[in-house]
């Protein structure tokens, strides 16, 4: 519990990067940790790169994940992997869209056309968070409450389902 866990989320404006960072922060806060989350708002909504740092532990000082100290780097857009890789510590875990879409995947738009997969462009961020959750020790109820607190009621069922899908996918891979 003393060690601070560092998570960096990265993607493009409009993908819900900040939303999933909010959900993780809420979950960590409910689980009793000190939490800091840092991001830059503003011009990012014009389609630019978006990052959010979430840190939790017994006591967190700086709100930004120090360079090369991220335990997890969660990237929701394939083009944003290379410019964020330096955030990861040695042995840190990269979670990127290839988890769901294979290595030759480069067009995120295809998500909406696959009827066998519950993931859509809109809920992809939550699927990625589900994948991250497989590596964190929060109870299911904590995740559920955090997801519900950050999304409108009509989106709860869909997002809880896609979160669980992401979580299973990550567990299968381990």
């Amino acid at each position, binding site marked *: 519990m003393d060690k601070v866990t560092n998570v960096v989320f990265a993607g*493009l*404006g409009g993908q819900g990067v900040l939303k999933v960072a909010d959900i993780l*922060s*809420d979950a960590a*806060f409910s689980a009793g940790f*000190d*939490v*800091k*989350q*840092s*991001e*830059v*708002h*503003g*011009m*990012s*909504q*014009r*389609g*630019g*790169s978006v*990052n959010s740092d979430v840190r939790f532990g017994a006591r*967190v*000082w*700086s*709100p*930004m994940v*120090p*360079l090369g100290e991220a335990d997890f780097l969660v990237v929701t857009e394939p*083009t*944003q992997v*290379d*410019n*964020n890789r*330096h955030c990861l510590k040695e042995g840190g875990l990269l979670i990127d869209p290839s988890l769901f879409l294979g290595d030759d995947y480069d067009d995120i738009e295809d998500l909406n056309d696959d009827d066998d997969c519950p993931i859509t462009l809109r809920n992809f961020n939550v699927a990625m968070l589900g994948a991250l959750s497989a590596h964190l020790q929060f109870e299911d109820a904590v995740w559920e409450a955090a997801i519900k607190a950050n999304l409108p009621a009509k989106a709860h069922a869909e997002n809880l389902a896609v979160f669980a899908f992401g979580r299973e996918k990550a567990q299968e891979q381990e």
Partner: protein
Amino acid sequence: MGEAKRLLLMGNDAVARAALDAGVTLGTGYPGTPSTEILEEFGRIGGRAQWAPNEKVALEVGIGVAFAGSRVLVTMKHVGINVASDPLFTVAYTGVTGALVIISADDPEMHSSQNEQDNRNYSRAAGVPTLEPCDAQESYDMFLAAVEISERWGMPVILRMTTRVCHSKGVVQTRADIPAPQAPHFVRDIPARLMVPGYARPAHRRLRKKLAEIKAWNETAPFNQCFDGGAELGIITSGVSFLHAREAAPEASICKIGMCYPFPDEFIRAFSQKVKRCLVVEEGDPYLVENCRMNGIAVENKPEMFRFGELNVARVKRILAGDTSTEPTFPPGNPPKLCADCSHRTVSGVLAEKQCIVAGDIGCYTLGGLKPLEAMDSCVCMGASIGVGLGLRHALPKEEAKRVVSVIGDSTFVHSGITGLVDMVYNPPPTGHVVIIVDNGTTAMTGLQEHPGTGRTMSHKATGKLVFEDLARAVGIAKVHVIDPVAQKEQFDALLQASLDSEELVLIIARRLCSLGAPKLEAYEKASGRQ
């Protein structure tokens, strides 16, 4: 006032919560990253919040509220203080009866700004007590302290935040024991508030006397803290730099300055004498360094390369190690760009094609100045497009002067463009001038805020509306055109060409709703009941 709660809040939201808990009568300001969410959140949780046309008006309204004995919150980004500096310097003289707390949200690194000015310099220049929170909890606590200081000494107080304080979340314990505000009432005090020379001279002396008292109080004030570590290294720091320093050097002794003006030099001197190496770790200008040295406290400054941009744990480690080698660079992310169907693209395209010399302004359309269009030649400050365009027209040879166009957004025009228009009529250049208001019906860049030109309040209710074309005609501009630059692209192109050729004073209002915000904006307008 509610009960005490433990919440996870962004720094901006913590300020809003503190303002609500303190019974602030009114929150006003102008949107600007990273300050925007403070007023929005204050309104959302039940406070009375409103957007002002610009920061100067916001502060003036704030002064009035505080003259009435109430508590008031005035928010702006760092460059907003430049606009509000005229009333700021003199309200320091008049003082206030209630509490006047001004938020200055600085943007080191210029994530979303045209400069990275360090507004602690204003504190000293204007003589306004200033608190610097490091995180969300301190943003909450220090807002309340600012209210207390403001009421105790009858002084405006600045809460100086930075991007990483405004936009970082942290755990906040709120309070339920905040003394209630006094009932608003007018007390006539002409010598205190009528700043003519005969009254202003004693007012300046009163200001210095108050500052001396606050300085004495600040020497033992709770927000200046020492964290004992070893005697080898002592770090003097403030704001978010404190957090980076604490993490970068857990073994060091730290002197954290919570109230940076009036400067608590005795407190810092005592700290400096206990350590062998005494280093200042601060973002931006060497404000603490210079104040230390002015008071005869020997401190080490960071190498000049760290004056630029934000600090973080890695950079603080470098400062401590005196490492001035080149910092690593990483592949750049995607820069922001205009939305695919944005009308600014069309306008920029036409301007580029005509090889206009474009005096630009601040908003999404500034992105039109980047590659590939490069349809903007300057961007200085809010409203500068019109004055700069006029100046170019006055000085350039005729054939070049005739290509000069000023481009300004709707919210920016309200903020600081109107007086430029008046100058255009009063001092017309020999070749005339063409101003384009790119009117997308919202303050798009900062996140779709309302402004007087939308005719809707911060909470999207119908209110008085500033109609640009009526205003321009009233000011004395004969040629005023309203056109949709996308639906009537060819006509827009022809109109611009004819206007440039005419050598007259022309205002073109290129009006089309922001493509990103259109569904919301249309719904607000419908709900406002005006249509």
